[in-house]
C-alpha cells in the first residue's frame, strides 16, 4: 500500500506544482496560460537530455530546465501579453502543441517519437522512489512559501490590484507589463522544474506524454479548488486525484460497472463537476474560506 | 405628468454601491441634465434606469408603472429609449438595419422615412455600415435609432463625449428639437454648462448622491455650483 501512496503523492505532487504555477499566473495575475504542458515538456526534455547521456549533475540539470522554461515563458509572454485574454489562451495552447511537434520532428536532438530513456533518478539519501516524493513535496512547500511571501509583498499587491481592477488594466502601465512578464516567467520556472522532476521520476519520456489534456487537468484542479488561493490549488489537485484515482476504488464496490464504462464515467464526472462549479460556483470549492 | 420617478435608488456592481440613494424625476416634455465629477455615478445611474446594471434597488416608476420588476428589454415598449456613451450604434449593421432593429412593419417603414427626412445625411447612406460613418453621422444615427420607437423619454449618456466643440453644439441643438416631438430627455453631460443652458432642470451628483438640484438657470447662477462643478467659463 505504501508504494501506491508514494506514487500517488509523487504524481499528485507534480500536478500540484503545475497547479501552483498556474495559480500564480492566472489566480494572482489574471493571465490565462493554456500552454502549461509546453513549459512542462521543455523542462522535462531539457533535464532528461542533459543527464541521459552524460554525467551532468541531476540537480544542475533541473535548475537549467527551470530556467530554460522560465526564459521561454518570459519570451512568449513578451510577444503575446498585449493580446486580449481569449487570444492569449489559444495562443499559449498553440505554443504547447508547437513544442510537442518540435520534439517529434527534431529527432536528432530529442530522439523524436521514440522518446528519451535511461534518465537517471533523483540522487538523495533513500531509494529512488522515496527521493522523488521527498523532493517533490519539498519543492511544493518551497513554491507555496515563496508564493505566500510574494503575494503579500508590494510586488504581489500590485499584481493583485492589476487583476482586480479591470479599468486600471485598460490603462496598463509600463511597470504593470514588467510585473506580468515576471509572474509569467516565475510560473514557467516552476512548470519547468515540475517537468524535470517528472522526467527523473519516470526515467522515460516521450512526446505522447505532453498532450494538451495535461494542461486542462491542471486548469480543472485550479478552477475546482478556486483560483487565487493557495489552498485552492491544493484542494483542487486532491479533488482531481480523487476523481481520477478514487474512482478505481469506487468500481470495486460497484461491480456492475465495467472498467470500460468506468473510464467513460470517470472523465464524464470530471467534466460534469467542472461545468457545475464553473457555472454555479465560479469561486471554486475553497472560495468561501478566504476573503476576496 | 410625471414620467420617470426614482426614490432612494441604489445601483451597484458586486458588493459596492456606486449610486447610493438618489431621488430624481423627469416630467413630460422636460429636459433634465445630470452633471457631476468623474466617478460620481452618473453612468451607473443611467444603467440602473435602463435595467443594465447588475444590482438595482429602491423605487423606480415610469408613467406610474413599476420599472424595477421589468427587464431591460421591456423598458423600450414602455416608451424609454437609450443612447449610450460612445458605443451607441450597432457598428456592423447598416444604417437602415440600425433603425429597423427598433421595429418592423408598415408603421416602422413610414417612421424610418421620417427619420431620413429629419436626418438627410443618413438617408443618403442607408446601406452603409454604421462603423463607416463619421462621428457626427453616428450621433445622428444614434438619435434616429432612439426615436424610431416613438419614445416618451430619451436617456442620453454623454451625447457629446467624443465630439468636437462644433459638433457638440449641433447635438445640443438636436436635443432641443426633441421637445417639439413630444419627447422628454434625461441627459448626462460633462459639458454641464452648455447642457444646462438647454435644460429645464438639473441634478448635480457627487459620490453617488445628489449634491444639488434645481431649475437649470438657478444652478447656472449658483456661485458654489460654479466653483465646484462647472469650473471656469469655456
Amino acid at each position, binding site marked *: 500500500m505504501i508504494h501506491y501512496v508514494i506514487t500517488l503523492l509523487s504524481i499528485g505532487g507534480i500536478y500540484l506544482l503545475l497547479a501552483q504555477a498556474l495559480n500564480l499566473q492566472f489566480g494572482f495575475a489574471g493571465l490565462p496560460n493554456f500552454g502549461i504542458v509546453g513549459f512542462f515538456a521543455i523542462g522535462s526534455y531539457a533535464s532528461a537530455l542533459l543527464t541521459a547521456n552524460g554525467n551532468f549533475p541531476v540537480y544542475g540539470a533541473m535548475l537549467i530546465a527551470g530556467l530554460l522554461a522560465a526564459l521561454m515563458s518570459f519570451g512568449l509572454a513578451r510577444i503575446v501579453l498585449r493580446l486580449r485574454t481569449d487570444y492569449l489562451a489559444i495562443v499559449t495552447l498553440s505554443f504547447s502543441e508547437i513544442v510537442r511537434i518540435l520534439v517529434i520532428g527534431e529527432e536528432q536532438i530529442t530522439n523524436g517519437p521514440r*522518446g528519451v530513456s535511461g534518465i537517471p533518478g533523483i540522487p538523495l539519501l533513500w531509494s529512488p522512489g522515496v527521493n522523488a516524493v521527498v523532493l517533490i513535496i519539498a519543492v511544493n512547500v518551497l513554491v507555496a512559501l515563496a508564493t505566500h511571501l510574494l503575494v503579500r509583498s508590494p510586488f504581489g499587491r500590485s499584481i493583485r490590484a492589476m487583476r482586480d481592477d479591470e479599468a486600471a488594466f485598460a490603462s496598463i502601465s509600463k511597470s504593470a507589463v514588467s510585473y506580468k512578464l515576471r509572474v509569467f516567467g516565475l510560473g514557467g520556472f516552476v512548470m519547468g522544474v515540475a517537468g524535470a522532476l517528472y522526467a527523473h521520476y519516470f526515467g522515460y519520456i516521450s512526446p505522447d506524454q505532453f498532450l494538451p489534456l495535461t494542461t486542462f487537468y491542471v486548469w480543472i484542479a485550479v478552477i475546482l479548488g478556486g483560483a487565487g488561493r493557495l489552498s485552492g490549488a491544493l484542494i483542487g489537485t486532491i479533488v482531481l486525484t480523487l476523481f481520477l484515482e*478514487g474512482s478505481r476504488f469506487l468500481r470495486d464496490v460497484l461491480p456492475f460497472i465495467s*472498467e*470500460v464504462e468506468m473510464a467513460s464515467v470517470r472523465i464524464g464526472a470530471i467534466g460534469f463537476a467542472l461545468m457545475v*462549479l464553473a457555472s*454555479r460556483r465560479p469561486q471554486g470549492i475553497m472560495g468561501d474560506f478566504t476573503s476576496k | 405628468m410625471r414620467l420617470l420617478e426614482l426614490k432612494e435608488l441604489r445601483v451597484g456592481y458586486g458588493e459596492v454601491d456606486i449610486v447610493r440613494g438618489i431621488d430624481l424625476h423627469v416630467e413630460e416634455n422636460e429636459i433634465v441634465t445630470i452633471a457631476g465629477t468623474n466617478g460620481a455615478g452618473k453612468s451607473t445611474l443611467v444603467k440602473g434606469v435602463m435595467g443594465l446594471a447588475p444590482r438595482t434597488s429602491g423605487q423606480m416608476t415610469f408613467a406610474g408603472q413599476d420599472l424595477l420588476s421589468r427587464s431591460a428589454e421591456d423598458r423600450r415598449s414602455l416608451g424609454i429609449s437609450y443612447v449610450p456613451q460612445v458605443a451607441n450604434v450597432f457598428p456592423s449593421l447598416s444604417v437602415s438595419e440600425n433603425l429597423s432593429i427598433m421595429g418592423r412593419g408598415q408603421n416602422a417603414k413610414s417612421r424610418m422615412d421620417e427619420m431620413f427626412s429629419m436626418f438627410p445625411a443618413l438617408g443618403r447612406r442607408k446601406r452603409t455600415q454604421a462603423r463607416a460613418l463619421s462621428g457626427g453621422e453616428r450621433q445622428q444615427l444614434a438619435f434616429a435609432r432612439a426615436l424610431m420607437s416613438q419614445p416618451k423619454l430619451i436617456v442620453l449618456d454623454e451625447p457629446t463625449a467624443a465630439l468636437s466643440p462644433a459638433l457638440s453644439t449641433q447635438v445640443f441643438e438636436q436635443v432641443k428639437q426633441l421637445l417639439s416631438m413630444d419627447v422628454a430627455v434625461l441627459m448626462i453631460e460633462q459639458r454641464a454648462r452648455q447642457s444646462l443652458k438647454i435644460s429645464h432642470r438639473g441634478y448635480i451628483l457627487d459620490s453617488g448622491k445628489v449634491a444639488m438640484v434645481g431649475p437649470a438657470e438657478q444652478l447656472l447662477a449658483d456661485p458654489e455650483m460654479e466653483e465646484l462643478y462647472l469650473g471656469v467659463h469655456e
Partner: protein
Amino acid sequence: MKNQGDVSRRAVLAGIGSTALLTGLSGRAQAAGNVFRIGAPNTITGAAGVFGTGVQNTIIEMAKRLNAAGGAGGHTFEVFAEDTQTLPEPALLAARKLIEVNEVKALLGVYSSPEALAIIPASNAADVVLMHTGAAPKLAADNTEGLGFQFYPSSQSIGFVLNQIVTKEGYERPVTLTLTNDASIGNSTSFHKYWAEQTGSEPEDIRYQPNQPNYRSELQQALLANPDVIILNGYEPDATIIMKQLYELGNTARVIAPEFAVTTRLIEALGPELVEDTIVYRFVPNSDSAAYTLFDEVYQAAMDAPGSANTYAAIAYDEMNLVALALELDPAISTGAELADAIHKVCGPDGEPCNSFAEGKELIAGGATVLNYLGASGPCDFDDQGRTPGNFGVSEVKSGEYVFAYGIVFED
C-alpha cells in the same frame, strides 16, 4: 443573480466526503480460498483506446470461462481491470493500485512501451509478472527479474518480414508510410536497413502525424515515387483514412500493412473492393490454427465482433492461457518468480505442443512437465529476457476475407 445557482461549499465538500468514504470502504480484497488475482491495466481511453476494450473484455471473458471449467491447478481467477489512458503515469498508478490494493500476481494486456517502461520497475520490485506489447529495446534490459514477457515481436523482426514479403512478391520500388510513433518508426527503419543491405537503395519514407483529417499531400508524395508497393506502418483509424484516400487518388500499387491496421472493421467500412489484394501480416502464422479459432470464439463472446479486429486481444487471450497453464503445471505457485518460471516451462519451444488450456491440462494430467503452447497470436516462445521471436503469417485480402498465403520465420 449571483446566488441563484450557487452550490454551497458544504454541499461540495459533502459530495467529496461521501466519495472518499465509499473509496475507503472498497478495495479490500475478500479473502477466498485459492483465488488467483490478475490485473488488467489496459488502454481503455487515450491514443490506443480502440484496442483496450477488446483486450480487457477478452481477459475477463477468459477468466469467466476458465473458472467455469473448474479453474487452473485448483485456483479460480479474479480479474481487476483498470484504464491506463494510454499514458505512463496513469498506467503506473493503475499498476501500483492493482499490485498493492488488489494484490494481483500478474499484470496482463499492458499495451505500449511508455506504459510498460513506467510499470516495470514497480512490478519487478513487487515480484509481479508483467505481460506487455511494448517494443522498446530497453524493456528487455529492464527485465532484471525475469518477470517480463514481451509479446510484440521486435521492430527488427517486422522489418525483416516486410523485406521478405517485398522480395518474395518481386517488387522493386517500395515506399513506406510511417505513423510518427515509436513502434511504426522502428518497423520502417528496420525495413529500410534490410532493403538497403539487399539492394543498396534507400526507399522513400513518408512520416505522417496521427489524427489528421486529410492525408492527400502525404499520399501524393508517396505516389510521386511511382511505387509498386506501399508499406503502411500504422493503426486502424489512420489506416482506414489512408486506404480510402489512396484509392480515391487512383493508387494501383499494392499495400502491405499489419493486420491490426487493415482490420475486418476497416474492410467492412471501406468495402472489399478497396482492400482487394492488400497484403496483411500478423504475428500468428496461420489464422486457421486451432488456438486462433478458439480465440475468435472467445472474442466474439466478449466483443460481438470477429477476433481479427484486434491482434492485441489475441495476445491477451494467450497471456491468460499461459498463466492458467503455469498454474495447472505448478499449483503451489505463490510468487511472481515461480509463476514466471512455470510460464517458461509451458510456453515452448520445446515440450509437448498444445493449442489450448484444455489440451495442456490433459497433457499435464498425463504427466507432461514441459509444454509448448501455440497461441492465437503466435507460437508464444520467449527467450530468457522475455522476448518473443518473430513468427509471422502473411495473408492476402480476397473479396473481403483474409486468405492465408505463407509463413515467415525471423532469422537474425
